[in-house]
């Protein structure tokens, strides 16, 4: 028996000196996982193209989006007007580009605003606990039962369709839902030893929130931000479609789709082009958000794969 239990020799083919070991940084790992997710990469590319379009197209367009071409009223796409014109003579190409631009600006502003507010409020509530936490939650739960879309429609109608006011109102009614989600996440962070450690060092509370709690839910915030863009675009288009949002002469994808829907049989291009832009925008962001979630999540089936 003794002879049996001797280990077999390490084969001669293993004598070659192998590669030295290498550690991957976290970001390398995330980006590698993200890049492996084809739909997410496609989403990112589409989104980049859309942004580029919204920025560059107005510069290239032969017509301004408010300029009226009385020689071409309600014309289908042609060499002169690439995406046709409205019955009033607006160039649809210019309108779609500007509308996309406006929708993007609103979406990004709203998403940045809600993400920042919800992150700070959610983590601070979790960290400070006690009275502050209870009051914050009370406020959040109260806001949750308020019919916010109705309020939003009312206020934005009064605002006269200024996109900045609309964004502000959307932030004010949009922060509390993610804040609650972040609060639940941050509850576990509050019990982390490094948070205790900082407290025992005498670091002031708000500094702990900003220095230790927020960065550690960073991946959640990034995902929240992308999903927030999708949601903001949807809400804004919804509002504008109903006529409560951005008003003429300013245009957004929503207002374009809204007016295009009225002429869908006679002038379908007025509906389909902005609708296509909207679909591309939301779908691409949703794909990116999905890809980010998988990349950040160590246990997700797609990300854990070798």
């Amino acid at each position, binding site marked *: 028996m003794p002879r049996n239990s001797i280990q077999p020799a*390490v084969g001669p083919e293993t004598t070659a000196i*192998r590669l030295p070991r290498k550690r991957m940084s976290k970001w390398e790992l995330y980006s590698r996982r993200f890049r492996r997710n084809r739909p997410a990469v496609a989403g990112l590319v589409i989104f980049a193209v859309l942004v580029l379009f919204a920025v560059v197209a107005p510069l290239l367009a032969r017509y301004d989006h408010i300029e009226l071409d009385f020689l071409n009223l309600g014309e289908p796409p042609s060499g002169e007007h690439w995406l046709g014109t409205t019955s009033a003579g607006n160039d649809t190409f210019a309108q779609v580009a500007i509308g996309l631009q406006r929708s993007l600006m609103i979406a990004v502003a709203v998403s940045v605003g809600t993400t920042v507010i919800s992150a700070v409020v959610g983590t601070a509530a979790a960290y400070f606990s006690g009275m502050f936490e209870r009051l914050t939650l009370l406020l959040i739960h109260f806001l949750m039962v308020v019919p916010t879309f109705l309020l939003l429609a009312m206020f934005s109608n009064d605002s006269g369709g200024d996109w900045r006011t609309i964004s502000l109102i959307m932030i004010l009614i949009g922060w509390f839902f993610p804040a609650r989600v972040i609060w639940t996440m941050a509850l576990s962070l509050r019990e982390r030893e490094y948070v205790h*450690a900082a407290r025992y060092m005498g670091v002031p509370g708000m500094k702990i929130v900003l220095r230790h709690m927020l960065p550690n839910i960073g991946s959640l915030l990034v995902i929240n931000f992308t999903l927030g863009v999708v949601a903001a675009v949807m809400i804004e288009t919804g509002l504008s479609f109903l006529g409560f949002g951005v008003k003429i002469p300013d245009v957004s994808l929503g207002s374009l789709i809204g007016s295009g829907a009225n002429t869908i049989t006679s002038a379908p291009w007025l509906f389909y082009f902005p609708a296509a832009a909207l679909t591309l925008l939301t779908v691409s962001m949703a794909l990116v958000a999905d890809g980010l979630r998988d990349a950040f999540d160590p246990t997700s089936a797609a990300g854990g794969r070798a």
Partner: protein
Amino acid sequence: MTNPLLSVRDLKVSFPSETGTVDAVRGISFDLKAGRTLGIVGESGSGKSVTSLAIMGLLDENVRISGSITFDGQELLGKSDKQLSAIRGNGLAMIFQDPLSSLTPVFSIGDQLIEALTVHRKLSKRAAWARAVELLETVGLPNPERRMKSFPHEFSGGMRQRVVIAIAMANKPKLIIADEPTTALDVTIQAQILDLIAKAQSETGAAVIMITHDMGVVAKTADDVLVMYAGRPVEKAPVHELFHRTRMPYSIGLLGAIPRVDKAEKQPLVPVKGNPPLLINLPDACPFASRCPIAIDACHTREPDLVDVGNEKMGEHHAACIRSHEITDGGLIDGRRVFPLPDVSERALAGVPREDRPVTLEVRNMTKTFPLMKGAFLKRKLGEVHAIRGISFDIREGETMAIVGESGCGKTTTLLQIMDLVEQVDGDILIGGTSVADVRGGHAERTLRRDIQIVFQDPMGALDPRMTVADIIAEPLRAIGTKKAESETRVDELMDLVGLDPSHSNRFPSAFSGGQRQRIGIARALATNPKVVVLDEPVSALDVSIQAGVINLLDELKAKLGLSYLFVAHDLSVVRHIADRVAVMYLGAFVEQGSVNEIFEDPQHPYTQALLSAIPIPDPDIERTRERIVLTGDLASATDQSGGCSFASRCQLFKVLPPEDQARCLGEVPPLTGPENHRNACHFR
């Protein structure tokens, strides 16, 4: 010669991963006969668990396994899940480290036992029930009939592990694999569980694979030992051989690195420097070469085979080291130690008697009660948990005071009371002479906090993963408003002090190993030049070879900087090594308190005696001949506030006392009495 029950040949396991293929097990072979115990030791990540999972057939589909595993004459590799589960049910049982994860929380333990009994054989309901009760009785669960209907969460860790063992015994296994079965448990419970596994083994005649990182457990239980390193066995021998005629530097290092509870002299421990290699693309060299003090050029050219280094007299002994024939007993090579002893730094305060040193931390009659609430909406107060009941101690400059006790006895609560600067109702906490009752307002608090800092148990959890090491260490400095330039030089200084390379200060914690992370935690605690450092189990999350380095560092820092430590640990060997004074805590009160030598040499309280005798000593000869006091039962609950000695329910002395003395134990709380350097709280000691 009888055929082995289990025979493993050249087992290799590799996992695909992001960074490349992880070769977790790289060729392991052994035989195990019925009734024998094989101990597998090695540090974290050496492939112990993966080996056992491979034998059990519990690895995922995508894992590559090669070699051969023959159990009871059958080849296990390549069998389908169904065939394997039949084989498992008929002779293989596994006991995991965490008993909660191996029990299903939603089923009563009776159901789970009966399922284990009936899944592979026909048994009437009644017979299964009877057998289940019998099994629970065998594993020493009180009131087995009633316990059948309980759910896992109603049990303590030790009791759950008993249930797991009962389930393991249900099918009369021929092989029991125990993977760190006692790591999550207290020493007194560990002793019970190890005895129980031995009992299960003798009743079923099973072979046991005992996987552990604790050399004491190996010394106590194993017949043969296999030391694993980087996925390969590096030494394999009968237990006496391995402990007394160690031939492989890694095993020598492992044995030298453990503090001994039975040795008084304070020699520095011998750490094994460096870290185990990543198991990806390992070069063809001795995997231990980078940490081996006697490595030579030839070590880097080829991985050494596991060859027979035994002699006729002592039987087989295998080691994977090209210099093993040069190594002699006692870990010597050419008459010198393989691992040279590190220098001991003289204590600056060693000459000054205790009474003449200033008190840095004083706790007077600390108490803490938690209300016990019930109901989700309208909370009703049911009673109180007395987590701490009036403890007092003081720590002087340059002194280490350790609090030991089982989990749940109130150690961490004590530390948190101090760190939270909680004002005491009928007592006081004084830090460097300042009472916490006088501290109001942020500034005063920050000033006081400079003098007391804490090091946490989990070296990963205590460091913010998103901050660089420089920022982490500088944080306490920033909190007290130190200038940036000043704190930068201080960070370099501190990293030097704790043995880290200051040029690594812009890296993130994840780039460091466990031991290094703990050093970062220590550097941070020292940043403000505190008088007292509170250490909450600072080494229990580290591997022994790394642990030794951190313990030495703590010793050295204390000597150099004249620090006081308040040290909380459940590992009495570590405490004996590092502490000057000890307090043994039971249910929120000190039962024995005094100087470390007094208490370890002459324990008086029955609980201290039991605690000390429960610790396995890493020497098979001593370990197997030692008399042992095995405590029965678990830690009682801190809710009952009876008028007597709280240890009475488990006390071994109580059982042999005459009735009138027993009445005194039950009726009168024993006070802490005795001279300053050795007090105990027992009426009869």
